[in-house]
């Protein structure tokens, strides 16, 4: 179980990558994802769900995520979120 204590980022703005900025939120605020993606209409809701699911799997219920996606695949998105979680918590 992770607890977010600071804002952290992971990833890049390169093609086929995603840049995520992860910040703690007040208890009960839930997970808010703001996404910028060139394929918003085709993949937007899927990517948002994947980000939320990855956070929940790490035991995080409240967070603010700003994500700029540049054609990243699911495995990349998960990896960047997991890294951001580590950087934002005291692990």
């Amino acid at each position, binding site marked *: 179980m992770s607890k977010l204590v600071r804002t952290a980022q992971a990833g890049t703005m390169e093609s*086929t990558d995603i840049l995520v900025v992860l910040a703690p939120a007040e208890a009960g605020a839930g997970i808010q994802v703001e996404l910028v993606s060139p394929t918003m*209409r*085709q*993949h937007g809701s899927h990517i948002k769900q994947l980000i939320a699911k990855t956070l929940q799997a790490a035991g995080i219920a409240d967070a603010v995520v700003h994500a700029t996606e540049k*054609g*990243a*695949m699911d495995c990349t998105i998960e990896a960047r979120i997991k890294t951001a979680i580590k950087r934002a918590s005291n692990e």
Partner: protein
Amino acid sequence: MKNAAGREIPVSIQGYKEVKPYAGPFATQPDGRMAGPKLKAVFPGTEKVLKSIEEAIDASGLRDGMTISFHHGLRNGDYVMNMVISAIARRGIKNLTLAPSSFLDTNDELIPYFEQGVLIAAETSGLRNKLGRFLTLNQLSKPTVIRSHGGRVRAIECGELKIDVTFIAAPTCDTYGNINGVDGPAACGSMGYAMVDARMADTVVAITDNLVDHPVFPVSIPQYQVDYIVKVDSIGNPAGISSGALRVTTNPRDLHIAKMAAKVIERAGYFKPEFAMQLGAGAASVATGKYLRETMLREKIRARLAIGGIPGPFCDLLDEGLIGTLFDVQSFDLRAIESIRSNPKHREYECSFYANPWNKGAMVNQLDYVVLGATEVDTNFNVNVMTDSSGIMMGALGGHPDASAGAKCTIIVAPLLRGRLPMVTDAVQTISTPGETVDVIVTDRGIAVNPNRADLLENLKNSGLPIMSIEALKEKAYALGGKPEKIEYSDDIMGVVEYRDGTVLDVIRRPIL
């Protein structure tokens, strides 16, 4: 009604001629006689050189509602189309149909003239950038008509596209109207597209920045087709006309695709002495030439003929004797421009000769192989090069449908995914080349052969290439990138994609953004 490509086509389309649904690549035989320009006589002593574009517009008799054209041989360096249309707007002429051989990135400047009603319709082979977006999202009085290079000549010659005035960007022009594209500060090489407009438009205005004494040589467009000549400071920016020598890509994915495409050529059955080929201008298509060269040297097989728009690496093959003759409708880079100027085996030819489906045999009919790119391909082997994954017009048919119809073996090269968008899908957004003229799809993660071509499949069986079904390729793409959600479209028809014979292959509806 459903056409032979399986697309739902309206029975009639507001602002478009009678709808004839696509019925197959060779289903239509023409009937009737060729259209032609108005007869005219220019008597001895007549001065053709006028002082300004405005004066030429007045002399041309251009009026509201007419159709004007331009050629796109100067590509992104062209100044002439924007320059002339702004002069037309100043003259207060409106309601014009603009029918260039293609649009390029620089034509975003034309958007205000569409908004003001100077221009009310467009007919073209391609649309780019903001202009493409504008014409996809804003309804004009007529839908944009999209034709292949061969289809455009056909439409002009059968009278469906009547050009009242053509304004020809002329890299070199003499004082009596002889034009070539190989000399001058804005040299572009082949004048293949302009040659059609020069012989078919009622009035021909040459716009040049290199006015020379009569007679110029060589002559691409002869004096007897040209009404007026205007000298301007510059017709184009050489940096945009040609970005120097087109280099073979270093992108490992494109090289991997190219290597496999070259092997498909070697093994598919037509790689024999004196074969004929066309390679597109995309990165993977050009790189295919690099690997094919190695194979040609190893097997001591040369091509008798290569055609199309010509990129520099093709000229190297010509110099090495690996290609017998190049026929060039558009010279893509500085290397090609130099080659067409100096090498007699590098021939200029016009677009009817290249690709017109309604003449007595275009050069594409002689092709063994063509290698072309794609924005999307679907499980019926239909290719889209016209709209992006959001349904916005951003590409060009070019000679894609023409070469695909003509060649014995049409090879499409594309990455399986761009970002996370699958390039092999259930159904392309827009069909620009019908699947029955497409034979092999080469992606970085696998190769599919059209099941109609059991012969190719048999020939490629023991090639060691990763051959799989098109469905398997699509599933691979969806597994990696996810299945994209469908784009929503309105009923408004923004573009009509004509097959090369003038039938309706597909329509482009306005996407709901």
